[in-house]
């Protein structure tokens, strides 16, 4: 079965070029373009290729993320999930897409038509833009900017504006409530998110995502350090809140304010909102993987397979949250961000400070100590009044 | 189980109220209704602090509407005392029990909505089951069904 002449190093070498397969593909196309087109147009072609690939991958990722979510949450609830359309329900996303296209697009009377039309577009644009910044594999990042990480946060913060405009444009009391909650939540969770990413910037002295990933070769990812693990946990919780996912899905709380900011959207506009949410889930998980889990760094498999493995691992946790947790209330949501996540991420920065200057053993011990104590103290402070852990019940005659 | 005769005697003795036994309850004159309730609620022996059921019954032949109250005591867990009040079918006004028992609030609104019994002293007496624009009292025996095909303008 295996060819006897096949030597061990061949496997490593075949993995090697499997890893660079996309880069080779682009280079061949580029050589072809160079020989044919004048110089400025070549630059245009290379840009078009990356943009084209990402613009194609984005919606596909989104569609199969909806499928994955329905399957995972289904299995959590002892049911099978979609399995009628296509072999394992694999054609279900396409069926949903067609349904969304054919659904009538209702604009409520008295709604602001321009805003009602513009806001889904403005929500999807940042979600798609951000995909370009992610390092999909070894030298496969579409845009390798010096200020990559900061640009990532800048682009995601523009999403808040369009959600608010969309809700304000649809003149519906429920979406107004949803908009107020959305803006409050997105702004107050951006800060802990950026702070918990500052930890990585301080350690690697750079804010370009590609270099951060390069700084974690082989297996020594940042997550295996005390500050890295807490950084990942804090960043991940903040990004769950950033994409309005389950414990924090107040802006579109279906049991309270019908569907929050996208109550009045149907058809393709609703699909755009849906796509923006799922693309944000993907991009923020990918960023968390890049910052703390070493992006595409991995011992044996080609780099982009590692990238997708880690990202879908983190996405699975988000889907797992979706199947388990009830929703927080607005004031608890705010309290959690400002009174727990923010102080924890600041303490995390202190720990990284110690980490860079102290010797490894002292840094480890001190790091774990500080984080544990601060977690305990903050938890105590936060739940002192609200939660009565075991409450007495009388079994009367 | 509380014997109604004993309650009848007790009421006569302490309040001087003439009540007579009718079916499973005591028929109380409309004017003294609230005093009877207050007495039954505060009296140490009875402590009827829970009004379980309140409903109106339409006696077309005697052209009377009877309101039936069933009182229980949650404190000393004793059985029902049925109190009945009769009013004329046309201008049926009954003192409302809501000042003493908040539990009677919705049931009195339902009696007003379906039977047209006006409870004076009730905080916001409006229709509870029918929509506001509905005329007539559907549960009365002489209620004529409007024919379903006529289109009714709903607010």
């Amino acid at each position, binding site marked *: 079965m295996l060819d006897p002449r096949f030597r061990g190093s061949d496997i490593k070498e075949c993995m090697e070029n499997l890893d660079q397969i996309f880069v080779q593909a682009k280079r061949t196309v580029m050589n072809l373009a160079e020989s044919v087109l004048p110089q400025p147009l070549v630059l245009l072609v290379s840009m078009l290729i990356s943009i084209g690939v990402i613009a194609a991958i984005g919606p596909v990722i989104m569609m199969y993320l909806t499928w994955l979510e329905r399957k995972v949450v289904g299995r959590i609830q002892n049911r099978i999930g979609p399995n009628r359309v296509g072999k394992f329900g694999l054609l279900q996303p396409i069926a949903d897409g067609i349904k969304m296209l054919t659904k009538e697009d209702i604009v409520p009377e008295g709604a602001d038509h321009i805003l009602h039309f513009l806001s889904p577009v403005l929500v999807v644009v940042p979600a798609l833009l951000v995909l370009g910044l992610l390092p999909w594999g070894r030298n496969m990042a579409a845009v390798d900017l010096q200020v990559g990480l900061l640009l990532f946060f800048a682009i995601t913060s523009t999403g808040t504006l369009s959600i608010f405009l969309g809700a304000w444009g649809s003149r519906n009391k429920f979406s107004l409530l949803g908009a*107020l909650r959305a803006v409050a939540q997105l702004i107050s969770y951006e800060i802990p998110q950026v702070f918990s990413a500052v930890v990585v910037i301080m350690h690697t002295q750079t804010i370009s995502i590609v270099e951060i990933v390069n700084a974690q070769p082989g297996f020594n990812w940042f997550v295996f350090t005390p500050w890295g693990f807490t950084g990942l946990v804090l960043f991940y919780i903040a990004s769950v809140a950033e994409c309005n996912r389950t414990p924090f899905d107040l802006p579109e709380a279906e049991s309270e304010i019908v569907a929050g900011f996208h109550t009045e959207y149907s058809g393709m506009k609703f699909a755009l909102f849906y796509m923006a949410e799922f693309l944000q889930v993907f991009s923020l998980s990918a960023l968390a993987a890049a910052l703390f889990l070493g992006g595409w760094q991995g011992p044996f498999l080609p780099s982009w397979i590692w990238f997708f493995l880690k990202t879908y691992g983190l996405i699975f946790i988000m889907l797992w949250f979706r199947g388990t947790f009830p*929703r927080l209330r607005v004031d608890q949501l705010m309290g959690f961000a400002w009174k727990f996540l923010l102080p924890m991420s600041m303490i995390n920065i202190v720990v990284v400070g110690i980490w860079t200057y102290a010797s490894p053993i002292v840094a480890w011990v001190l790091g774990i100590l500080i984080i544990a104590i601060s977690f305990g103290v903050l938890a105590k402070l936060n739940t002192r009044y609200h939660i009565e852990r075991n409450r007495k019940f009388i079994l009367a005659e | 189980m509380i014997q109604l005769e004993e309650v009848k005697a007790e009421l006569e003795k302490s309040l001087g109220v003439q009540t007579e036994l009718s079916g499973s309850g005591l028929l109380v004159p409309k004017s003294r209704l609230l005093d009877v309730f207050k007495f039954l609620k505060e009296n140490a022996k009875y402590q009827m602090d829970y009004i379980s*059921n309140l409903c109106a019954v339409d006696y077309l032949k005697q052209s009377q509407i009877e309101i039936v109250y069933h009182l229980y005591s949650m404190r000393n867990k004793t059985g029902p005392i049925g109190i009945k009040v009769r009013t004329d079918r046309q201008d049926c006004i009954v003192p409302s029990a809501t000042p003493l028992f908040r539990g009677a609030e919705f049931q009195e609104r339902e009696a007003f909505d*379906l039977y047209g019994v006006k409870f004076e002293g009730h905080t916001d007496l409006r229709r509870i089951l029918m929509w506001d624009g509905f005329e007539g009292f559907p549960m009365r025996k002489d209620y004529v069904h409007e024919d379903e095909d006529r289109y009714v303008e709903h607010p």
Partner: protein
Amino acid sequence: MTNTIETQTRPSLSTQQLEVSIGPQHPSTHGVFRMNVVLDGETIVKLKPVMGYLHRNHEQLAENMSWLGSMPYTDRLDYFCSMTNNIAYALAVEKLMGIDVPERAQYIRVIMAELTRLVNHTALVGFLLNDLGAFFTPVLYAFREREKILDLFESVAGSRMMCNYMRFGGVKLDLPDGFVDCAKAIVDNYPPFLEEMERLLTKNEILMARCQNVGILLKDLAVNASVTGPVLRASGVNYDIRKIDKYGIYDRFDFKVPLGTVGDVYDRYYVRILEMRESLKILRQAFKELSAGPVISQKGLIAAKSPRNMKVPAGDAYGRIEAPKGELGFYIVSEGGTKPYRYHVRAPSFINLTILEDMCLGHKVADAIIILGSIDIVLGEVDR
């Protein structure tokens, strides 16, 4: 509905109050029920419940039908627990007619009542968590157990939710042969399900933070507003009609009545889980003591054969039982004819709603939804 927006003037910042109608079509009002809420920001300033969308005038229907004719309609009152509705109606008419119920029928009634309590409380815990935002997981775990019990009802009475199984003087048909040990198996594997739900929910910090000290109902307000059922017991009032009236053969079983201390949504949730445990105890004792024998008394059988000429002696009677949602009572006036002269249903959900506004004032919109969920209303019973 006048849509007035009072602008409350405050020196620094005059904000408008938002009038929202959490209306008949809303994902978590458990049916066609509307709450007119005046909001200041997110906190509730005024809340008026509006009902009557599902009003079918069940009481007038009963006045034009034979006594047994309205038995299938009682299934549609509280469509989650049709067996207990039937029992309550049968009890009231038996009190008026003076029919006695044979031994085996009494045990079957207790078994069916407690199984219905399990079904209702399991579904409620699921729906309460659904209002809290848990995306259908607790509901589907609860429905997994509920389906097994509904299959039992189907094998006994012929239909899962509209059982129409009780007759005056006993039950319609005897238990099929495989019923008892199948029911025993379900009752035995219920505790693991309850433990799993408790592990998933009771100590969950988010649930505790959302439910504790929310919608507190004080003892005396509860008694005065004649609230009954688990909502009353969660506020600490020891009032369970199975223990007080000892109707049927409930005095032969020993079971406890769980009481809460604070009376908030968390207590109401946990009291129902404890009540499920008590029902399991009753069921085990009932299965042990179930004896053979006739299932319907002779007088009852003749009445069931030709309901149209079954006469009930003149008089009036008020029979009540401890339904899963509270005290379900039937007040019946008969003039000796084959049709009831007056037929009134004292519905627990309808009266438990009086205190909805008192509990919701000052809370947020999200709290009002779970307070409504914790009262456990079913619109078939509220609107009759």
